[in-house]
């Protein structure tokens, strides 16, 4: 979203329309531009003789895209998209 600047000065976000003037930055999705995000989710690991290995070899991954009109999940969140898959890693190898 366009992060509003407080009274058009400094590095603080304005909160409430009465103190917003200008923007600090817009961290929203610009129109007609592809935006890519990359996330790394660690598998739980355990120590074994000779090193470490995953505690589990499959993870259920769920991606949910929420629209938060008031900035938090506490007030009127809207689920826009979701994606689920199971990610597996190999059990053999060095």
């Amino acid at each position, binding site marked *: 979203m366009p992060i509003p600047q407080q009274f058009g000065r400094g590095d603080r976000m304005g909160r409430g329309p*009465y*103190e*917003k003037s200008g923007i600090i930055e817009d961290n*929203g999705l610009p*129109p007609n531009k592809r935006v890519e995000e990359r*996330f790394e989710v660690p598998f739980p690991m355990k120590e074994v003789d000779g*090193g470490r*290995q995953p505690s589990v070899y499959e*993870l259920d991954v769920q991606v949910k895209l929420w*629209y938060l009109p008031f900035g938090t999940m506490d007030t009127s969140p809207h689920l826009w998209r979701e994606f689920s898959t199971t990610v597996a890693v190999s059990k053999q190898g060095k």
Partner: protein
Amino acid sequence: MRRLQSGKLTALLILALFAGTAQAGPAGIGQRDTIAAKAGKARTIAELAAMYDSSSCVDCHQDAHDQWAASPHARPLFGTGRTAATFRTAITNGLMAWPYSGVKVPKDVKVEHLMGCAKCHLPQLADATDAVASELAVSLFAWADAVGSGDDAVREREEKKLLSLNINCLVCHNRNAIVHKWTDGYPQKGVVYGSHDGPHDSAGFPKLARSPIMSESILCGQCHGLGPNLELDNPTQCGTGYGSYLWAYRAEGGRETCQDCHMRKSKLGHKILSYSDPAMIKAALDFEADAEGMYWRDGTKVSARAVVRVAMTNRSGHSIPDG
């Protein structure tokens, strides 16, 4: 010499008198025939509501009315309650806290104080006296106090008052239907502005006239935000959607209008919704995601991880989120 100086002084005084007379009165032709000019400034909330009373439109335009009634335009001062609460916060944390505003208590609030919000939430407030602004501020506080104390009778009374003022048919189809008034004329009392000229089967509004901007984004842009309202003595800023539309969408080759997406393609008509509507949500965004597992090796330390990639393309006419 003295007679000459006296004559020169008289001539200067006469010139000043005429110059002053020439500068008096509003610029432009036709201002006196608007709804507001004919009625005179509203002195109460009830008078302002009556000035822009669109109830007669329902007889023939039931569908459009029902769509509109389900939209945020029908409750711009109140919203779900949060908007009214924010108005109140703007008064307490803003106007009453600022040392140079002139507002110590809610009844001190004038039209000029509220235009930071009302410019968009109730543009017709500009056609009211300061007594209406004061009444609005008092009503907002009375509503909030009644919510806090559980006084349902007062809460309902004040909600009814706040809900009586809205962005209704006459705001878009008359008052705000013309943006360039010196070019296209001031919106006239008794005229409904839309897509074409002609007679209109209504006693109060017997004439139809074409608004050149009824299907243009600038109609919506009057309220839906360019950034700080720098024309105000203490600028405010709420939505910046129109600014985003101009500079992030149109400037980059986008060609659709607000009405194209929010009314026609979505089939919402006058319901005009955005982030909460399934059709708008679907149209707004292309979304792809995938994930794969891998082992990261950092020297002798091994870590397994899931790498998740998400790609999103905003297909709307403005930054998301924005408004």
